[in-house]
């Protein structure tokens, strides 16, 4: 009797595994980039990871689901090329392929822009799921840029995804909101894995114990980290130019984003040593703490 039950259990276990394997081979990965709190760098992260993956030779499409508040087009410098938006696709004014805007530099990279004149109710969860599954046939990666908040916009963005990157900063409000988002992601069966990207890290402040460290944030949220991005004024200038910072190989933030993309592709890349280039004051402090023992 027990043997019979065991056999049955094995059958049940085996079936879905095989199915999911086939799906992984045939279709692209759908990753939602979310945060809960606004202004922590979701869209910047999306633009940079997307660009880095495309530079690595992958076919990438980014979907901006922030209806009414679109910005991903600006960060990529594509704002003048948008003809159709995701709402036009949903309302069948155009085909999905017509609405995909190709990147200026990289033909592997596409954008499906959000509508600026509509609100979050213009697209439903099922419609987004459908769009994602259509895109999975032609692209290796579908990056979904999620709006801030935990309402319908979030639910829509998460609907088609099976992986998530939760963007946060080492600030209390951002970490708290990230915790909420992680709770919601856990409740979603479709989300198979999620990781933390800690943005706007200031190594000099962490060194003086004035800011939570990346390890603190990871421990508090008990979530593994996929990326640590230092605070970088270059982000502002690159946004102004409409060119993601990963294209600038000298930039530390750009390198950090490139490393995130490599980790997504399965490479084991160590985290950048951000403390190496702290200010002169930091170096002097380090020297003295080295002389007189541990600083309090």
């Amino acid at each position, binding site marked *: 009797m027990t043997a019979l039950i065991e056999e049955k259990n094995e059958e049940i276990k085996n079936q879905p595994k095989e199915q999911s394997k086939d799906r992984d081979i045939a279709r692209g990965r759908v990753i939602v980039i979310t945060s809960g709190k606004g202004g922590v760098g979701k869209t910047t992260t999306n633009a940079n990871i997307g660009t880095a993956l495309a530079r690595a030779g992958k076919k990438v499409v980014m979907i901006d689901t922030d209806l009414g508040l679109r910005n991903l087009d600006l960060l990529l410098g594509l704002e003048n090329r948008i003809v159709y938006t995701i709402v036009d696709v949903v309302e069948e004014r155009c085909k999905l392929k017509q609405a995909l805007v190709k990147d200026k530099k990289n033909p592997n990279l596409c954008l499906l822009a959000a509508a600026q004149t509509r609100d979050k109710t213009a697209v439903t969860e099922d419609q987004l799921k459908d769009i994602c599954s259509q895109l999975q046939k032609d692209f290796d990666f579908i990056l979904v840029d999620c709006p801030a908040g935990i309402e319908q916009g979030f639910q829509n963005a998460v609907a088609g995804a099976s992986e998530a990157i939760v963007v946060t900063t080492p600030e209390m409000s951002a970490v708290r909101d990230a915790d909420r988002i992680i*709770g919601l992601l856990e409740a979603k069966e479709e989300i198979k*894995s999620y990781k933390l990207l800690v943005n706007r890290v200031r190594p000099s402040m962490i060194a003086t*114990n004035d*800011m939570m460290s990346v390890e603190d944030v990871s421990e*508090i949220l008990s979530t593994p980290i996929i990326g640590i991005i230092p605070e970088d004024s270059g982000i502002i200038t690159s946004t102004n130019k409409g060119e993601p910072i990963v294209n600038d190989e000298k930039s530390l933030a750009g390198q950090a984003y490139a490393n995130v993309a490599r980790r997504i592709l399965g490479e084991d890349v160590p985290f950048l040593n951000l403390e190496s280039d702290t200010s002169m004051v930091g170096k002097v402090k380090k020297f003295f703490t080295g002389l007189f023992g541990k600083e309090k």
Partner: protein
Amino acid sequence: MKDIFTDLYNKVFGFFRQAEKKEEESAKDVACNRLKFVLMQDRTNLTPELMDRMRRELIELLSKYVEMDKEALELGFEQEGTQMALMLSIPVVRAKDESEIEAILAKEDEEKAKREAESAEESSEIEDSSSSESKTEEIVTEENEASTDDEDTMSGDITEEVSKLEKSEDLLVGAVVSSPISSQNKSNESVSGKKEEKKPVDAISK
């Protein structure tokens, strides 16, 4: 004159104490501790309504023993080191006489005995059906709900009130001691459990 000096002394001393404290705890530690606590609170399943109910039931129980300022009673979570504590602050208006308390308790016991005799058959049935622990828990919560129904409908009758107090007594023990902590543990367990399940899948790193 003396008052002025003591006041001044306290102020000056207090200032230095504050300064000391600030040096002891870095901004990072403060942030971490505050965050851990607020997340604990966020993750517990105690809604404001439930907290309010807990408050009401506590007042009911405690007013048997002391006369207190019900409006000024404070109930909330606070952090004690790494542990979360349920803090209850009760301004006592007047301590009740021994005889007063005994009278209330005697009345209660009487009522209890009466009730037990009445519901002996009922409860025996319930006990039969509730062989497992989880079932008894369910019944406790059901009773819990029933008791508040009583509260709403028959608040005038004194004997009813006493019986209700007696009923809510054991419920309260459950509510104060175990329920916030256990529910929190449960949610934490489920969170960490799920996470551990998911980590090996780890499609992002693959």
